[in-house]
């Protein structure tokens, strides 16, 4: 190199290294911006304040400060900052993008989309506008359009090929579209551009995990190494690494401790209860991003058939021929392409066969619900005629006969998308139509109700309602008995959870004759992972198990029961899976993010007020995003099997639904099929108490709980070691009380409600018939 060139080079290097003229405020601003690009908004914030101390007129610093505030959830602060800007500054594209972002943050995604469109009209080169649009297409339900999100990012990358946000968003969109090969390529690009960013490796590792690519291991290990100063990100990377290793038979012995995820789990009682996934071989392993499902004997042949619904996909009706299931959806008139959310079965017209209800469209906005009337095994949607086809944003729904007129009514959760619509109480007019009496009855809750449950918690003979709300306190509507309800949630002590409330059901956890209450909670994934590590929940965002004290109040026994952990439970089901006479709980877990792979969980009721996690040993911990989870003894071998509707928010997040066959061992049981005459035909709301030796085992009949789903139509009682029932008390909703003596175990009995009598009926009448089951 000649001397002149060397001097020039040194001069160039020096000029690029030093920038003596740059004001301190500019340096700080650049540092803040760099931090914001790394999503470190809290760290960037004080720097921006400092910039504004040094350069109070810096509008761009103000805008960035607003953005930092907004990204940390301080929307009002951001709005204040924006309002304080001079008019001319508010016209800057950055300020307008922030304004649009605030709109989106406040839930006005469509308005935000319009605003960004205008920004892009005025400033076609606005990268921030383009990327906000991509975010809206990627994340907001109302504006979801993954293809357009992809296109926006691709356009942004033309001008800035290594733009971090554009690369991230593009990879996310590709992944959510289920284009795993392309996602892998984009992962590679992202990692080449940002080889030292843990979040890039985490996202790429997630993509590789979904693509079942070997690179998941090194990428996630690198994500762990690069996330040491970001505990939440590190924990997520560690968890996904565990998932990746689990697919390869677990951690290799040589794997360093720093790559191992550990959990705190109290010692569990050994169980040999085991389930096998036979969904595929049985022909019911549909990939429909499973939502609700219901067991029904639609053709009255004595075998339990299965109705399953998913999102924007034809329903499925599987006829059980005693050996396997046949898809009869088309033939029976249920090939409704609109799909649905909740799915329940009930004989609303008392004609002897169960009908089906499906709600729509929940988070995705308003759509009419469906009521499929069963006419000799053939279904037709009569929602319009029945008066329940209004365009609503319904989630779960529960059947009950609230006025004891012998016909089933329906309570529907509305408003989940923020529409402000109140819940409906659809009163059965006994002529195939319904009339909404929610307002008059005082149950038209306009909160974002997501979960509903019905049960006579105070034992006064009238069925009460529970509404689980998102972001608001929950309601316990006590049925006064005159067609109205009063909210007693506060005095009863069942207001929680508040933020992540999801589904609910009543059940008698300890057979004391009082209906207890379980409410599931959707906790954030970091909370769930932390909870796995510490064994503790993030209070008060956890499930709630309320023990009914019998005096109108409930006691929160979640912690002593061993359930005080954080879960992402989008649904929950209940059934006595080991026939020990105590009802067990299944939590259907997950969440929209593709990286949220959280196992579903089965908790065994130990009978002493505590529950034990038997997920691993029972083989029920699928990572598929859990929804409707229903129990029924479909193979008639005496134990309850489980159907789990699985699937996430995005198209890519599709999992085959699972039919878990209960392989036992299980104790003795009794199934009770009810046929109401004065009460509703299904006998929903009826309560039974089986007396065996010194024990009493109880159950209440319901349909439309958990995810608005239905277990098998018969009441299933686990009897423990008892081989016969000394006596059985049956209380019908009509008030009729029947008592039977010396009933055999391990069979199904069919009981018809006496048509005239009220009070305790004669016990010698052959009021029931026994059908023995063949395993």
């Amino acid at each position, binding site marked *: 190199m000649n001397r002149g060139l060397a001097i020039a080079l040194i001069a160039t290097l020096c000029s690029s290294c030093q920038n003596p003229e740059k004001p*301190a405020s500019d340096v700080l601003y650049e540092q803040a911006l760099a931090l914001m690009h790394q999503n470190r908004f809290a760290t960037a914030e004080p720097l921006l304040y*400092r910039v504004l*101390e*040094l350069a*109070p007129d810096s509008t761009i610093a103000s805008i960035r400060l607003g953005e930092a505030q907004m990204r940390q*959830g*301080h929307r*009002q*602060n951001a709005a204040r900052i924006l309002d304080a800007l001079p008019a001319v500054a508010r016209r800057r594209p950055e300020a307008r993008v922030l304004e649009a972002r605030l709109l989106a943050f406040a839930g006005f995604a469509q308005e935000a989309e319009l605003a960004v469109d205008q920004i892009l009209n005025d400033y076609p080169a606005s990268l921030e506008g383009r990327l906000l649009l991509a975010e809206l297409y990627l994340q907001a339900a109302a504006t979801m359009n993954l293809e357009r999100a992809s296109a926006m990012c691709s356009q942004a990358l033309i001008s800035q090929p290594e733009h971090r946000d554009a690369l991230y968003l593009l990879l996310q969109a590709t992944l959510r579209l289920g284009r795993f090969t392309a996602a892998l390529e984009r992962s590679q690009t992202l990692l080449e551009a940002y080889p030292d960013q843990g979040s890039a490796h985490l996202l790429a590792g997630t993509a590789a995990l979904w693509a079942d690519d070997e690179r998941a291991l090194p990428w996630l290990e690198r994500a762990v190494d690069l996330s*040491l*100063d970001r*505990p939440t990100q590190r*924990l997520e990377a560690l968890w996904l690494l565990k998932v990746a290793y689990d697919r390869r038979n677990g951690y290799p012995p040589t794997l360093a*401790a*720093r790559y*191992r995820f*550990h*959990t*705190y*789990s*109290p*010692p569990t009682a050994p169980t040999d209860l085991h389930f096998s996934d036979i969904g595929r071989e049985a022909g019911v392993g549909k990939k429909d991003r499973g939502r609700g499902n219901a067991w029904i004997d639609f053709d009255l042949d004595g075998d339990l058939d299965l109705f399953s619904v998913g999102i924007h996909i034809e329903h499925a009706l599987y006829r059980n021929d005693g050996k396997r299931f046949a898809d009869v959806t088309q033939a029976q008139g249920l090939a409704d392409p609109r799909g649905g959310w909740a799915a329940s079965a009930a004989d609303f017209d008392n004609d002897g066969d169960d009908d089906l209800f499906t709600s729509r469209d929940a988070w995705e906005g308003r759509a009419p619900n469906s009521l499929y009337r069963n006419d000799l095994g053939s279904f037709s949607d009569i929602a319009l005629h029945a008066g329940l086809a209004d365009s609503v944003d319904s989630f779960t729904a529960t059947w009950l006969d609230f006025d004891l007129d012998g016909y089933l009514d329906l309570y529907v959760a509305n408003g989940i998308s923020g529409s402000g619509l109140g819940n409906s109480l659809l009163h059965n007019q006994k002529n195939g139509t319904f009339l909404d009496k929610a307002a008059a009855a005082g149950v038209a809750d306009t909160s974002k109700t997501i979960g509903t449950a019905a049960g006579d918690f105070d034992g006064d003979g009238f069925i009460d309602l529970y509404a689980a709300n998102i972001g608001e306190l929950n309601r316990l509507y006590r049925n006064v008995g005159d067609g109205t309800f009063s909210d007693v949630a*506060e005095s009863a*002590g069942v*207001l*929680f959870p*508040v*933020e992540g409330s999801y589904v609910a059901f009543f059940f008698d956890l300890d057979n004391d004759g009082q209906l207890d209450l379980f409410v599931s909670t959707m906790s954030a994934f970091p909370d769930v992972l*932390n909870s796995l*590590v*510490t064994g503790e929940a993030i*209070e*008060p965002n956890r499930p709630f198990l309320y023990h009914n*004290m019998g005096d109108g*109040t*409930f*006691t*929160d*026994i979640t912690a*002593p029961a061993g359930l005080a952990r954080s879960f992402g439970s989008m649904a929950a089901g209940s059934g006595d899976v080991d026939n020990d006479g105590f009802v067990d709980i299944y939590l259907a877990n997950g969440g929209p993010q593709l990286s949220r792979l959280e196992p579903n969980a089965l908790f065994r009721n130990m009978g002493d007020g505590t529950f034990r996690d038997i997920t691993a040993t029972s083989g029920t911990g699928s990572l598929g995003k859990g929804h409707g989870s229903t129990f029924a003894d479909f193979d008639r071998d005496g134990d309850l099997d489980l159907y789990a509707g699985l699937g996430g928010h995005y198209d890519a997040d599709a999992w085959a639904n699972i039919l878990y066959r209960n392989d036992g061992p299980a104790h003795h049981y009794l199934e009770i099929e009810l046929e109401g005459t004065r009460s509703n035909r299904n006998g929903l709301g009826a309560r039974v108490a089986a007396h065996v030796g010194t024990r009493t085992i109880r159950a209440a009949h319901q349909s439309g709980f958990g995810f608005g789903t239905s277990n098998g139509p018969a009441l299933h009682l686990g009897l423990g070691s008892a081989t016969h029932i000394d006596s059985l008390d049956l209380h019908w909703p009509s008030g009729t009380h029947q008592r039977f003596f010396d009933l055999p175990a391990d069979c199904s009995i069919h009981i018809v409600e006496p048509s005239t009598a009220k009070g305790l009926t004669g016990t010698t009448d052959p009021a029931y018939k026994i059908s023995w089951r063949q395993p």
Partner: protein
Amino acid sequence: MRIGLLLTLISLGCGDGGNVSEIPDNAQNLQEAVRLRSQGSIFLQQGRPARALEALAQAVRLDSSASPAHFNKGLAHVRLQDHPAAIASFERAIAIEPKNPRFLFALAAALRSQHRYLEAGTFFEQAIAQQPDHAEYHFNLGEVRRATSDFAGAREAFSRTLELAPGHLEARYYHSDLLARDQELAAARLGFTSLLDQSPQHFQGLLGLGSLLIKLGEAQQAAAILERAIAAKPHDPGPHYLLAQAYEQADQPQEAAKVRERFQRLGAAERHLNQGTIYLRRRKWAKATAELERALQNDSTSVTARLRLAQVHWQQQRPDKSIALLEQAIDLEPEHLETRLALGEQQLRTGALATSIAHFAHALKLAPDSFTAAYGLGKARWQHGDLTGAVDALRQSLALDPDYRDAHYALGLVYVRLERFDDARISFTHSATIDSTHAESHYGLALLHMQQGQKNLARQGLEKVLALQPEHQRARAKLTVLGSQL
């Protein structure tokens, strides 16, 4: 990391036994590194982690081969809550001196603070291998084993802790708890009893023994123990739940019902308090108010709920309501430090200086090492005109946190009022050194220069103020005056 042990580690620091016997590449650098290490160690022992870090970071830049520098730097990071950086420093110390048990222990403790329990366990084991008779090492190993569900291993570690330190309360508690889990009820009972003999108010111990006695069917004894737990923490729902069980077992249904009702209310209060606190953090004032008021409805004597609600009112510019709530809280619990501090601060801001002084002084009695109390007292006395008292309090605050800019600055202002200009200059110099962008400190210095006729220095100072804060009108005015004088 257990605070006590951490403080011990920090107070000990690591003597600068740096290995400087090798032939230096640059003797001057090494000498400077030794000086900085020593300075860092002193800063650390003085409780000035930021300054310590500054010195130690320079020291390791000049000489990265001295393990104590890395170790002390790690301790400084721990004090500054930067655990990932602490881990990196401890790892470097260990790379140089792999068998130093203190280094191994410090690394393990830092890893544990990040919930990296499996790795922490490995390093605790290594520390124990080097120093097998250190009870605290075994105890910490027990804790991480317990956290990773290795209950048998945890029990063994706690057992060893107790062999080495029979009076170790927490080890006794966890050991007894694990015995109870393993259904060794008689041994567990002995353990809990021994724990409570040593520490009669040990809350978890009381709950553990109460729960165990219920299991053993000794309801009356359980009730007595649980009543003690309630006396220790009257707002905690946990012992009420167990006590209700004990009364039920003892066939005292009325007492059981009464206690259960109290449990329900306290449980509800706790849930509303938690939810209200979440809303408070999110600045959702209306929702926070509703939740915290519900908490108070359920537990009318809750000091914490009042404190949180007072925060909401304060944020919502309702000082009267806020102060009224805090005064109620003080009536309920006169020795509650956080309430005293909040009242002191709020009374200071509303100008009730005598009351503010009284609360800060009370807080300082309760917690003589509370910087906030001393600093608050200093500010309140200053505003009240008790300048000598202000000096005392501000100096006390600076003894607790020598690098707090605003305390130096405030002290400077007080000295100015006392016409102790040399002292004022020292204070302003301190605050300007700690934060060179603090315009007011430079302004104070400039005024002192003016007052002493050092016009050039004053002008330079004022120009600096204006460079930092161009709209500083007082500085501009003074500069104009100065310009006309020059």
